[in-house]
């Protein structure tokens, strides 16, 4: 490894990691399709791509969590066939996950040595803490080795994760969207650490979808799109614009399923948000002053990479999350917020991201889930006693109308296929005759046929006068279905377009955090 200390050595000659032709299939999806990836000693190599582009699958293959269906893995010129994450760690591949894997009640030092083979138990605390302290100074990772994890901030916890990997003498470090949980200042500090690590000839694989950061810290970038590697470029030859193009694809294939000349100027506003603000589960600002309106019959898309506030937006509108500022109006009626019942009664339908556990009670029957919101209304019960026969006949009719493939109305909902689960949910939401529908990633994980059905149902709803807010990471879907779209980045709306006139390039740049040129925004 010492021969690689000189970081200016030609990369191609000292590859630290070479993945070639990696293919990984899951039922119904090819997550990685012949991906080629090579990173050299002493470089920060970014892995860039939208959600679902195959970044996570690729890093799981490299860390031994998944076994690839095809392709080879070479670490430091040795071919490996990882059977478990342990094997990968032994080969020098360490990963810092987005969700930390730390024992909250243990100290930093204890977490660092946890799981280490041999002798860990008998090492004195002082010696371990000393070692951790040395590492943390060497790599600019300030953290008190004696502190307990629960006392640390998110940024500090991430440093512990990095120390853990360094302590195991990993030569290849994978950082999975590390800046997603950091403040800008913390991100800068992390970049310093990353440079210190690669200065020793180690390799850092930096998974990200933030274009400016990638250009800032990485030497080279490999871009994934739709499970394939579309190219590796040096950041010195790249601009935010050229990376955005690679990431989103200039020739994004979509068929407009919506007429371009619909006008909604006269339709009443059915959903209005004014200056909405909200915090995420960790207490960070997740929605920053979001204002948006949806008119009856209109489909408005919210595009953006996951984790930029879309989830919180949907939750605030539907009452699942309390806002910390701003107002939401449904059909002109102001919601007090934080109360799903109120939103439902105001005429809001919700197709949540997690359809099987949030949108449905998975172990309950299909018929119970079909009345999950209407059970408290009149025909379904009489003085508190449920009318089973009415529920059954209503359920049977809906199953027929929405073509739900189920053995019967009493089958547990979780036993149905993904597409049929979504049909049960949509059947229930549509029959409530809503004014507004908030749909979050409604086709994610469905097969082609089911995607078509769900999209047709959404278009049908809009034709019936429902205002639809379609929140999706799938840009193709947003472009195909909506009349108007906004882009969210870091909790704010950073651009708005009439979909028929939208420039994919500018959308891609906005999604990656670059600001669009003013004329493009004005053009909307």
């Amino acid at each position, binding site marked *: 490894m010492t021969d690689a200390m000189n970081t200016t050595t030609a990369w191609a000659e000292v590859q630290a990691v070479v993945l070639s032709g990696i293919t990984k299939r899951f039922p119904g999806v090819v997550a990685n399709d012949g991906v080629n990836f090579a990173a050299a000693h002493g470089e920060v190599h970014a892995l860039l791509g939208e959600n679902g582009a195959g970044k996570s699958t690729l890093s799981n293959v490299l860390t031994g969590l998944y076994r690839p269906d095809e392709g080879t893995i070479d670490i430091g010129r040795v071919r490996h066939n990882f059977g478990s994450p342990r094997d990968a760690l032994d080969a020098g591949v360490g990963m810092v996950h987005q969700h930390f894997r730390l024992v909250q009640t243990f100290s930093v030092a204890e977490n660092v040595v946890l799981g280490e083979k041999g002798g860990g138990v008998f090492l004195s605390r002082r010696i371990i803490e000393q070692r951790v302290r040395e590492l943390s100074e060497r790599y600019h990772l300030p953290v008190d080795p004696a502190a307990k994890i629960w006392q640390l901030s998110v940024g500090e916890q991430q440093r512990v994760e990095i120390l853990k990997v360094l302590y195991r003498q990993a030569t290849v470090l994978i950082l999975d969207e590390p800046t997603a949980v950091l403040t800008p200042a913390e991100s800068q500090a992390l970049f310093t650490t990353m440079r210190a690590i690669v200065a020793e000839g180690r390799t850092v694989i930096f998974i990200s979808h933030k274009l400016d950061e990638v250009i800032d810290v990485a030497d080279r970038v490999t871009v994934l799109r739709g499970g394939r590697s579309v190219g590796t470029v040096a950041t010195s030859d790249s601009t935010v614009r050229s990376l955005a193009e690679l990431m989103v694809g200039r020739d994004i294939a979509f068929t407009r399923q919506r007429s371009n000349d619909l006008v909604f100027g006269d339709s009443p506003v059915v959903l209005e948000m004014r200056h909405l603000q909200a915090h995420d589960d960790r207490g960070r600002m997740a929605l920053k002053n979001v204002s948006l309106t949806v008119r009856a019959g209109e489909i408005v898309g919210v595009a953006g990479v996951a984790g930029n506030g879309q989830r919180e937006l949907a939750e605030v509108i539907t009452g699942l999350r309390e806002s910390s500022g701003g107002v939401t109006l449904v059909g002109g009626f102001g919601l007090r917020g934080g109360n799903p019942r109120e939103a439902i009664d105001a005429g809001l339908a919700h197709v949540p991201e997690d359809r099987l*556990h949030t949108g449905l009670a998975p172990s309950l029957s299909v018929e119970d889930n079909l009345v999950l919101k209407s059970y*408290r209304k009149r025909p379904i019960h009489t003085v508190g006693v449920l009318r089973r026969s009415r529920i059954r006949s209503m359920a049977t009719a809906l199953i027929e109308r929405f073509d739900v493939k189920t053995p019967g109305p009493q089958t547990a909902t979780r036993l149905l296929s993904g597409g049929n689960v979504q049909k049960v949910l949509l059947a229930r939401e549509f029959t409530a005759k809503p004014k507004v529908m908030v749909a979050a990633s409604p086709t994610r994980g469905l097969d082609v046929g089911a995607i078509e059905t769900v999209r047709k149902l959404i278009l049908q709803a809009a034709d019936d006068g429902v205002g639809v807010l379609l929140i999706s990471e799938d840009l193709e879907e947003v472009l195909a279905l909506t009349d108007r779209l906004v882009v969210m980045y870091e909790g704010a709306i950073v651009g708005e377009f009439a979909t028929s006139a939208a420039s994919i390039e500018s959308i891609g740049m906005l999604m990656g955090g670059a600001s669009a040129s003013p004329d493009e925004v004005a053009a909307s």
Partner: protein
Amino acid sequence: MSSVRGRVRFEKRLDVAKRMTYLVPLMSVGAALVVGAILLLATGHNPIDTYHKVFSRGFGSRSSLSGTIGLATPILFTGLAAAAAFRMGLFNIGGEGQLIMGAVGASGVAIALSDQAAPVIFIAMVVAGMVCGGLYALVPGFLKARFKTSEIITSLMMNYIAAIVLNYLIFNSTSYWRDPKSKGFPTGKAIGSAAQWNEFTVSDVVVPLGFVVASIAAAVVWGLYKKTRFGFEVNVVGDSPVAARYAGVNTRRKVLTVMGISGALAGLGGASDIGDFRHVLDAKGLSQAGYGYTGIVVAALARLNPLAVIVVAVVMGGLTNAGYALQGPDFPSGLVGTLQGLILFCTVAGEVLTRYRVRINRRTVAPAPSGPAEVSAA
């Protein structure tokens, strides 16, 4: 190089076949009897004789059935209490304390109203037992609803508080409940004869009023959970609290209500303990009985089905009853306990089989070339 690793894996069953729900418990009991027989043989007892005795002393005659039903009554109440809460995923471990509080309340009103007519006292005792048990359960319920405190911990701790309060009332104070005339060992005031609950005799089998009340309660709880809007909400919360919130169910209020119902059922058991059996607030007897904890086992074995709780409580009562009969100089109580424990153990173990399928997985890590070297190595 090849390595074949055999691994035992538990896979969750997607759907539990209907017949499994009764076949597995039956087979579990069968397994327990087989293991128990080995144990009996090893300790020099005839298993067939012993099992025959267990059956005849537990369920075989009218007098033994009377005893069994009496023993089943308190655990029927606490079993219902546990089932009512557990169905919503609310783990009320505090049946013990709620039963004690119910007994305190019921005996209090029974003493106070001793000159009233029997039906008046009966109704007052039922109400007092339910209210005291229910309110006592609302404390952990409130903490859960308001601060998301784990009800498992708080309701468990409240059992100890209840036991201390009970001791205080009888042993450490001259309270309203303590009999001032008791010399030496302090006891509670006995309730008047009008306050004692009736017994029914159905073809020579004695059935205490409490058992009838409990069976009615079981039917009511079953209907409430199966047939009503309220029960629907409870089922949704029990299956997926997020989905319940999404559907607009007020989960906090549900926690309070269900906790109150559960506590009231346990408290009713306390009233029955006073009215049917002890006729006095018996501090020592109540703290040693452990009705609350047995109730959790009853509820679990009944798969939280209120009607099945009746059956399981009677079976458990029968086992206890037979245990008393078996016990003797040549049959130590430890052996009785072991036999009862085996049945519980096997039933709970069988439960795992209904929900999971055991798969012994032989995974070939690398393609295994079949060569002579391989054979000789093996």
